[in-house]
């Protein structure tokens, strides 16, 4: 790794960490969501440095472009009760810190182990001009076309199920049916009652 790439890596990593801290400390949920966007963006930068350009672009397009925008809308439209969300932050902090520390220790142990060190050693660097987007696409649409289509069917099930479970006409909402409106006849609207004429006294 050259000095220059170390510099870029440090920049991405530091901003990523800062943004991640920002997500959980920002008081305003919209700010928190924007920090998450920043974190994703820097993560994508790290992937780009690893020459995983497909994952990197997919992260920006799918997560930053679609999921987070949707998330922002939800945050803005739902009236989130901030005071209730923050309740118990200090109470749960020790447990959270403990779990976090444990994860850091475990990750250090795994990464510094012998098996991990030998993982990347045997791998030849990718030949110049190999695009992993193209390779992934080739595999996905040839060898893995059957699982790929099955995944598409599962998405279709998800759409059908989501609509079947949530779409229903509310009983208390008032609506009008223009087709019925134009078909109305005078007889439906007024009722003519036969009454004896009464004389004024």
């Amino acid at each position: 790794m050259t000095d220059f790439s170390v510099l870029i890596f440090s920049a991405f990593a530091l901003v990523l960490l800062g943004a991640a801290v920002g997500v959980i400390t920002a008081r305003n949920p919209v700010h928190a969501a924007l920090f998450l966007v920043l974190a994703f963006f820097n993560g994508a930068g790290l992937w780009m440095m690893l020459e995983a350009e497909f994952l990197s672009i997919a992260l920006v397009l799918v997560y930053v472009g679609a999921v987070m925008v949707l998330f922002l809308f939800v945050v803005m439209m739902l009236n989130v009760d901030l005071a209730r969300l923050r309740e118990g932050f200090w109470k749960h902090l020790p447990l959270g810190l403990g779990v976090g520390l444990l994860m850091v220790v475990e990750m250090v142990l795994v990464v510094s182990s012998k098996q991990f060190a030998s993982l990347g050693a045997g791998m030849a660097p990718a030949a110049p001009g190999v695009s992993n987007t193209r390779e992934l696409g080739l595999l996905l649409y040839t060898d893995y076309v059957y699982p790929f289509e099955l995944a598409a069917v599962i998405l279709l099930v998800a759409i059908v199920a989501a609509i079947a479970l949530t779409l229903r006409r509310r009983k208390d909402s008032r609506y009008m049916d223009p087709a019925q409106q134009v078909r109305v006849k005078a007889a439906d609207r007024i009722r003519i009652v036969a009454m004896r004429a009464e004389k004024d006294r």
Partner: protein
Amino acid sequence: MTFATPYLAPVYPEIFLLTALSAILMLDLFISDSKRFLTYAYSQLALLVTAALLVMGASGHALSTFGGMFIDDPMARTLKLVAIVAVSFVMAYSRTYNQSRGLFRGEFYVLLMFALLGIMVMISANHFLVLYLGLELLSLSMCALIALQRDSARASEAAMKYFVLAALASGLLLYGLSMLYGATGSLFMPMVANAIASGAADPAILVFGLVFVVAGLSFKLGVVPFHMWVPDVYEGSPTAVTLFVSTAPKVAAFAFFMRLLVGALGPMVSDWQSMLVIVAVLSMLLGNVTAIAQTNLKRMLAYSTISHMGFLLLGILSGSLAGYASAMFYMVAYVMMSLGAFGLILMLSRDGFEADQLEDLKGLNKRSPWYAFMMLLVMISMAGIPVSVGFFAKLSVLSAVLDAGMTWLVVFAVMMSLIGAFYYLRVIKLMYMDEPVEESPLVAETDHRVLIGLNALAILVLGIVPQPLIDLCMASIGQSLRG
């Protein structure tokens, strides 16, 4: 670059089913509520054509396509046919029940067919990824079906439980599969089997993965100690969905065991045999003993399912071709009995009334001798009393276990089915010897009377001459494994 079109002939049934269900999904939008019967008729037609394509495509030997991810062997064809017939019966039995409960909607039929597609994909899977995708297709459709009656709190609760536990089981299964992949370096089942047989794979990692795989599989089959979802889902879902959950997915679970444990992990038979012994013993014990205490008929049948699945495992764990064939026979017999039992509950229910308590069966003979006799046959078969298919199912499974040299297990299983006979016979006593509580007359549709008659006739006839079905199972298994 070139793209070779895969050989599609073995996949025609699946392709047709997917196309037809998408067409029905669209058509249903243009059908008014009063003509909803058309959706039902089209769905039955789609199943019929799928079955016809399946039977016409039968070639007697194994074909594979999509680079070996899809396998079409005699076992797959037999199991698919059983699953299609089961789903067709589910649709027919549940017609009037659905009409009176607002479930007579296009989504019900479309989701049923999606689930069937998932089952067929699983049955033909020869690759871990495909197997998992088929499983998710089935689980998600099933989850939506359970929750379809969304104003019912109990159905929502059942769907939630199923969803969370199914996700957990999928996680366990995937973790196990990733271990197997790490140890053998392949996701193709035959290659995994070869790698294990050659002894190149690390046995510690393999056994570690195997434990998780068996746990995931046990959940899908609903056996102890992964049975918690079964009673709640059976009781909470609309009976039409319970009927489905208790039949066709069991075919998929059997295929799942055969493909994964026997197909891919066959060389490790001594390892998974002992695990399955524990699971089977616990299932038969807990299922039969707990079923006695139930007052709800659907819940009682749920516990009885757990014990039946324990019996099914006995056939698989005997580890011989005859054992696998007997497990397949048991599975087919169970599907028939379960269709009959839940089908009758559906027919005894009416608008606003669920006949799902044991009380509701009291004096059924006085109200409808025909239905009472049908229920009698189903219960006799479930208890494993001779002159019913259930007897031969139990007999063939037990003889396979005996051949495997586990005499104590046979004795235990017989004792457990004696305990089980109590609650099946109690149902018969309620129907024939008690006075009816409910006096309202039963309305019976002609097609229901005929179909349930056929169903019970199959139970009876196969109880007298079981040989054709046994031969079919033997042939399917024999030609598919080491064929």
